[in-house]
């Protein structure tokens, strides 16, 4: 006699759907969306800083001038005019390229998906930083890649460790296909690779003939105004560069891009057409009109100043309030600081208590595929105001104190069982 499992398709799902399941930790983020909760979890850009009226005018003008085109299918590679403007945007990070090699995508997340689809068979290895962006780990998982984490230091991915990891992968008879890195203002670690570090990593990738996938959504958001030069600026053949307007204009537009060597680009376009036919013309032409008529560099400067003020509020309040033994990174740009809790504490186990205290963060284990990271958490300062950030840190400090009390009572090294399912928030909080 068989019962019911309430899902008639349960035996039909692909292996890659394994892990797509309910999680108690993920459910807690539903509470984090409530206004009473100071959410230091979400990586949502503060789009309220955009000049709303000017943006409305931009959309209006675009529709008046190019309405029928905006509402129609478009090219799978993306609007040619926008691609030319993207070339201009990439000059800011030192990249010189041709618009033929740009593929516009539905956010850079889709570019990440397409590159993985084109490069990776099940079981292929992708080398990533330890920790790495949740959304990238999800893509690699969905294509059944094996993710290998490579250690970082204060300057990001460590080249010697990368070389060792590649050698070990090859010795196991596996195929390393991609090196995925976020060189500037890393998500979640908050660190930035220097020029020498970038050159060394590129040298490893070229020597080993592994495509280097450079994800650069935060590159223009350095707080001192200097813009790190992209790795792609030094090599047009070995690097696939991913860019995004999510942090420099608005994430709701979902416009990003990939810049790839021509052979890769051809395949990305075909893969994009089979996935979505074409990116949204409406969104692309809106971005194009915005870039053509609005002071976008000034707007980025506004974002930088706003995020720097919030970063300062976070760091100052942590210095004042967090219990001894807590450490954190000092980001020079971007959205995130990476926190190391006092010894014996477990950020995943602590999250329910934090949410009950009306503060939310993302537990560090979500940024690894192999169970590491329990002593870490990621704090985002991009969305809450400085006052709310200070209040959030005050609440978090109290929670850490309570958790320390538990450790004193029960001893360190008593992690609760890791909950099943994805223990990270949805896209509005990644």
């Amino acid at each position: 006699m068989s019962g019911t499992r309430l899902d008639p398709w349960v035996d039909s799902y692909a292996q890659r759907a394994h892990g797509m399941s309910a999680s108690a930790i993920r459910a807690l983020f539903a509470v984090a969306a409530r206004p009473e909760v100071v959410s230091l979890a979400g990586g949502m850009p503060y789009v309220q800083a955009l000049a709303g009226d000017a943006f409305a005018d931009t959309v209006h003008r675009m529709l008046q001038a190019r309405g029928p085109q905006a509402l129609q299918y478009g090219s799978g590679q993306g609007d040619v005019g926008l691609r030319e403007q993207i070339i201009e945007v990439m000059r800011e990070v030192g990249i010189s390229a041709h618009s033929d090699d740009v593929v516009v995508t539905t956010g850079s997340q889709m570019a990440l998906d397409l590159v993985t689809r084109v490069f990776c068979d099940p079981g292929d290895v992708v080398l990533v930083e330890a920790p790495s962006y949740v959304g990238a780990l999800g893509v690699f998982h969905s294509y059944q890649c094996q993710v290998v984490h490579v250690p970082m230091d204060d300057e990001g991915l460590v080249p010697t460790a990368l070389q060792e990891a590649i050698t070990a992968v090859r010795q196991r008879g596996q195929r390393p296909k991609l090196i995925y890195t976020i060189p500037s203002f890393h998500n979640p670690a908050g660190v930035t690779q220097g020029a020498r570090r970038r050159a060394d990593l590129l040298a490893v990738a070229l020597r080993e003939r592994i495509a280097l996938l450079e994800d650069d959504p935060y590159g223009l958001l350095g707080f001192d105004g200097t813009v790190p030069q992209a790795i792609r600026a030094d090599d047009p053949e070995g690097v696939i560069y991913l860019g995004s307007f999510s942090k420099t204009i608005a994430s709701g537009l979902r416009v990003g891009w990939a810049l790839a060597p021509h052979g890769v680009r051809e395949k990305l376009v075909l893969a994009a057409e089979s996935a979505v036919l074409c990116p949204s013309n409406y969104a692309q032409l809106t971005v194009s009109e915005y870039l053509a008529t609005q002071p976008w560099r000034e707007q980025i400067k506004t974002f930088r100043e706003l995020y720097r003020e919030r970063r300062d509020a976070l760091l100052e309040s942590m210095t004042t309030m967090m219990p001894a033994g807590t450490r954190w990174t000092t980001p020079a740009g971007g959205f995130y600081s990476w926190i190391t809790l006092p010894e014996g504490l477990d950020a995943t186990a602590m999250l329910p208590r934090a949410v009950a205290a009306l503060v939310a963060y993302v537990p560090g284990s979500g940024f690894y595929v192999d169970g590491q990271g329990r002593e870490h958490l990621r704090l985002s300062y991009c969305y809450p105001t400085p006052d709310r950030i200070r209040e959030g840190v005050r609440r978090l400090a109290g929670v850490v104190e309570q958790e320390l009390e538990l450790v004193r009572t029960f001893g360190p090294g008593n992690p609760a069982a890791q909950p099943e399912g994805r223990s990270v928030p949805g896209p509005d909080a990644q």
Partner: protein
Amino acid sequence: MNLQVAVLAGGLSPERDVSLRSGRRVAEALRESAPDWEVTEWDVDGRLLGCLAEHRPDAVIPLLHGAAGEDGALRDVLASLELPFVGSSARSARLAFDKPIAKALVDGAEMRTPAALALPQSTFRELGAAEVLQAVADHLGLPVVVKPTRGGSALGTSIVRYQDEFPGAMVSSFAYADVALIERFVDGTELAVCVLDEGDGPTMLPPVEIVPPNGLYDYHARYTAGTTEFFIPARLADHVLAAAADLALRVHTVLGLRDWSRTDLIVDHAGTPWFLEVNVAPGMTETSLFPQSLTAAGHSVGKAMRRLVEQAVRRAAG
């Protein structure tokens, strides 16, 4: 009868997401079965009392899970506003929500419930965790189940089979509540027995046998369709099912519950049902047990909820 009904769901508990899904499902089912009614869904926040005072719904369905929703507080507020609501009174909800109190009342009424201790975090701090845990293990034996005394969806719940698993289980439980219930583990068949009272006295709906994938009906197993296998009717002898039903009905009566409840129990290998806990705002999501039980009994969620709403309105009218 043309009624305005407010479904309250959400809140700030860790079960917010489950509650929102329960609320949406009940509201949609009610709109379908009572198309003339005005059914609204409200979150529970600082605006709620103002909304209730302004709109004065004819009846309220509290579907908040966890504290505030099931601990009686919200029901006290609804009663003080003289708003009819579906489900148990504040007093009964309070008794049912606190697991040690519910177990004590059930035990006092000579029903079986596994031996247990309820210990606050401070006890371990003051007396020494290792010593207390050893004493607990000596008293109850292993394995035991550790869970928060207040809360649902198995959040913070672990099975401890070996002494060295105890500290992790305690830390996990204390993440959700300040007091932990440590209960002797009973091996057997996990069963949920739902009780519905539409005015003719409480009646049992078909018991649901629960077979989770790794022995623990945890959050993942509860809310991921396809993970847990359910059997309705449960694969137990008739006399065992009758005993389980009798236990659920007696729990409903002893705790003074009203309208509906879901009792979770274990039937051991000798066929004896053991009370674990009872819920006064049962989950109503796609994978929840109460809707499965209703469907097996030939009821629809919408019609059953409609009758409970009408009953709440009549009850308030005296």
